[in-house]
């Protein structure tokens, strides 16, 4: 029976390429898919591209992955699929072309898929009566339309599959859904039709278990993190599918763990309703799914079902919201928290004197409650023995200058505040705040095109 193995090579832009490189050299896989895009990554890329038109994609895909193992992947006939194109697909393709030319990889085929970036179509869609309703908050899209950095539809697997059919050795996309990168080669290899919902759903869940890299193989593993072997050589997961079976494993000679619990934690990660996990390709139902250990570092996934795909595509809109700055100051035992709290009060009184107009202020104490906030242990016992505590004040304002007012007030507290304050990390900066407008767009508004060039 035909079996296809696909590896998950990257969990986000900035992830380590080590596991992907190891997999290319050592694993029996035919495909490797690398996800570089989180929700706001495209806004960051769009902003970079405004400053420098040659930017706007994830250059690491070429500089850290292809340069280390791209030629080996080609020689071993491992096809690589990635959304590293971000906002600048042609820039990414150019970088790959330059790499392949320098490596003398004659005949190397670079596929790419365009059409997800629909920013230029917004005026027409508004004229046509599409309102871009916000799924999470009230608000009128026309109020933010001038502040938009990017507007990209989450596209499905079809364009990627076309490029694979045309013989691409590497396929670059922009905002393809993470899991579509994995579904495309499986749909191609097994000839799944566009309405073969159960099989499409299996392919999507293979992608879902792989798209976060190490998190699918013992990274960020709450069940028993101490038991994970060789985290310094953490392997990333591999999905092996036949027309009937679906298993997860990992490459030989690497660390990490593949077991029921590690897969479960990733299985529901960033899922909302398990009976209706919406993707551009299929509405996935995992509410009856099972995960069973079938071997050493090998689990089998069953009972995944699919339903008809949604009528609309999810749209990722990032826009300018305002500015923020984060200031910190550390305090030591005794009474570390009391001092840090007192210092925060002094600073806020000073800011009131200086008339800072902040739209939001968030004060927390690192080492105590900056992560768990309301549910952190603030008992007398916990506070009494605190060795150290870092005051953290974050300010948001729509006005950059208002936001910046707090910055010079922090380091003077070393001499002018409670005892033992220690300033570190240099003066804080004002950072731009970008926000997401979660919405959808009609499928007809998105024209997906697949292209190919040969070296």
């Amino acid at each position, binding site marked *: 029976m035909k079996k296809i193995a696909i590896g998950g090579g990257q969990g986000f832009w900035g992830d380590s390429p080590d596991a992907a490189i190891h997999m290319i050299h050592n694993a029996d896989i035919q495909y490797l898919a690398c996800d570089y895009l989180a929700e706001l990554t495209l806004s960051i890329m769009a902003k970079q591209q405004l400053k420098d038109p040659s930017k706007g994609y994830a250059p690491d895909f070429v500089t850290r992955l292809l340069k280390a193992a791209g030629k080996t992947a080609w020689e071993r006939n491992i096809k690589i699929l990635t959304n590293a194109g971000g906002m600048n697909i042609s820039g990414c393709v150019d970088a790959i072309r330059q790499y392949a030319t320098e490596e003398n990889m004659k005949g190397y085929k670079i596929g790419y898929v365009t059409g997800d970036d629909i920013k230029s179509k917004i005026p027409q869609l508004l004229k046509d009566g599409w309102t871009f309703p916000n799924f999470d908050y009230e608000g009128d899209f026309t109020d933010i339309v001038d502040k938009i950095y990017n507007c990209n539809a989450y596209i499905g697997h079809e364009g990627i599959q076309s490029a694979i059919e045309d013989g691409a050795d590497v396929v670059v996309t922009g905002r393809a859904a993470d899991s579509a990168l994995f579904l495309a080669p499986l749909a191609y290899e097994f000839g799944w039709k566009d309405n073969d919902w159960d099989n499409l759903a299996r392919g999507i869940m293979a992608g879902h278990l792989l798209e976060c890299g190490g998190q699918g193989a013992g990274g960020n593993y709450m069940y028993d993190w101490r038991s994970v072997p060789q985290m310094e050589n953490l392997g990333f997961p591999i999905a092996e599918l036949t027309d009937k079976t679906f298993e997860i494993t990992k490459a030989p000679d690497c660390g990490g763990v593949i077991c029921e619990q590690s897969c*479960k*934690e990733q299985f529901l*990660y960033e899922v909302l309703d398990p009976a209706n996990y919406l993707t551009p390709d299929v509405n996935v139902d995992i*509410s009856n799914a099972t995960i069973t250990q079938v071997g050493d570092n090998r689990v089998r996934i069953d009972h995944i079902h699919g339903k008809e795909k949604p009528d609309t595509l999810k749209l990722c809109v990032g826009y300018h919201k305002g500015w923020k700055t984060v200031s910190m100051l550390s305090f030591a035992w005794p009474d570390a928290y009391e001092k840090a709290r007192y210092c925060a009060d002094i600073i806020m009184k000073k800011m009131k004197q200086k008339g800072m107009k902040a739209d939001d202020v968030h004060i927390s104490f690192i080492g105590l409650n900056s992560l768990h906030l309301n549910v952190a242990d603030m008992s007398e016992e916990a506070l009494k023995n605190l060795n150290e505590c870092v005051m953290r004040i974050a300010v948001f304002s729509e006005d950059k200058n208002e936001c910046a007012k707090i910055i010079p007030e922090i380091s003077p507290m070393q001499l002018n505040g409670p005892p033992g304050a220690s300033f570190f990390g240099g003066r804080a900066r004002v950072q731009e705040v970008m*926000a997401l407008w*979660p919405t959808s767009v009609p499928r007809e508004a998105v024209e997906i095109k697949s292209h190919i060039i040969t070296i």
Partner: protein
Amino acid sequence: MREILLNDIAHGRSGDKGDTSNICVFARKPEYYEIIKREVTPERLHNFFGDMVKGEIIRYEVPSLGGFNFVLKHALGGGATMSLRLDSLGKSMGSAIMRLKIHVKDEEL
């Protein structure tokens, strides 16, 4: 009856979609599933998290995996770069929920 922490009988992971946090929680042993089902309700989580979570809390049951998926809306102080929190993506929401105190009969453990 005795009081234990959810952490004693469960494990899980949290993720984010905009300002929505999802926390999946799994029973460490199959027999703990019913305890979690009884004790970890959206109402209790509302009281537990307080104004950290400003929106609705929905619980989905996935018995075939021995677990639950909790969806917490308006839970991340705006989410991603909007949030002023240190943990703007709510990576630690998965461990925060494990602090929940729950009540069990001795014979259930």
